[in-house]
């Protein structure tokens, strides 16, 4: 798939220093006056070099973001996984329609009859049902919601 190819070529674009940065900075970024300088020091980098590398990795989309990861449930909001069975011929058009909703935080194509899987993030719990109704109206397709009933483990850190 196109984006997989594009992403795997990025793999080569990350050098050893980039990987050390990604591994070291997946959490614990300092809340100090000059946090980049503080974070750069143990990596043996200057503040300017760290900033330049973060900028480059964001531009190349090796990083999707650099900043706080919010847990919307703690703010009274909701994250809900949802899926649709999209006819292949309409896939790209439907993906565009679904992605246009700001409530859609992530969206993945997967190999299954349920071939589109997305995460809805809303600030109020009732926002989920509302977003689902609007997505169903916009696409003419049923949305199956899979709210989590229990979280056993979440750890999004990966070794670079």
């Amino acid at each position, binding site marked *: 798939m196109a984006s997989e190819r594009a992403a795997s070529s990025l793999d080569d674009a990350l050098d050893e220093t980039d990987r050390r940065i990604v591994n070291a900075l997946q*959490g614990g970024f300092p809340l100090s006056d000059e946090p980049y300088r503080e974070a750069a020091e143990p990596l043996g980098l200057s503040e300017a070099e760290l900033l330049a590398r973060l900028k480059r990795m964001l531009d190349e989309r090796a990083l999707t973001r650099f900043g706080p990861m*919010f847990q919307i449930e*703690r703010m009274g909001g909701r994250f809900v996984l949802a899926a649709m069975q999209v006819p292949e011929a309409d896939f790209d058009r439907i993906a565009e329609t679904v992605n246009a909703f700001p409530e859609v935080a992530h969206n993945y194509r997967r190999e299954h009859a349920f071939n589109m899987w997305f995460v809805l993030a809303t600030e109020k719990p009732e926002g989920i049902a509302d977003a689902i109704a609007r997505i169903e109206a916009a696409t003419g397709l049923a949305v199956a919601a899979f709210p989590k009933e229990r979280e056993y483990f979440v750890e999004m850190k990966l070794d670079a």
Partner: protein
Amino acid sequence: MPDGIDRKIIVATQAGLPLVPRPYDALAGRLGIGAEEVKARLARMLDTGTIRRIGAVPNHYALGYTANGMSVWDVADERIDELGEMIGRLSFVTHCYRRPRRLPDWPYNLFAMVHGKTRTEVEGGCAIIRELLGTACRAGDVLYSTRILKKTGLRIQD
């Protein structure tokens, strides 16, 4: 619960921190509050779990984790919590949840995300999960992602 100022900080940082030497000063200037207050509020949101962590959010594809399998299992209700905790402790499982079945289309109630550098690696992980679930598991499947269609994360409206 976050208040109005916290909410402003969330809106200002949900796409990322400013990439400048003094990012909290930059945020403070934009929000019209002091940098000390920005830092104190971020620290409190970290303490309460409103912020999971602050740092780099990698694109796992770019790190070489190009095989991304959502493994799903139909596990006996009376054993799922015990087994879910066990599966969640496996090193290659990055997320593990209990979710509702959607019969007849969807019989699976345990979701375990397995990231690997190759599909073979993911399949190896799924075989281990299958074995641990044992007789409590009636069926399973692995849904590989073939395209990221969107990955922006949370966006609350200003």
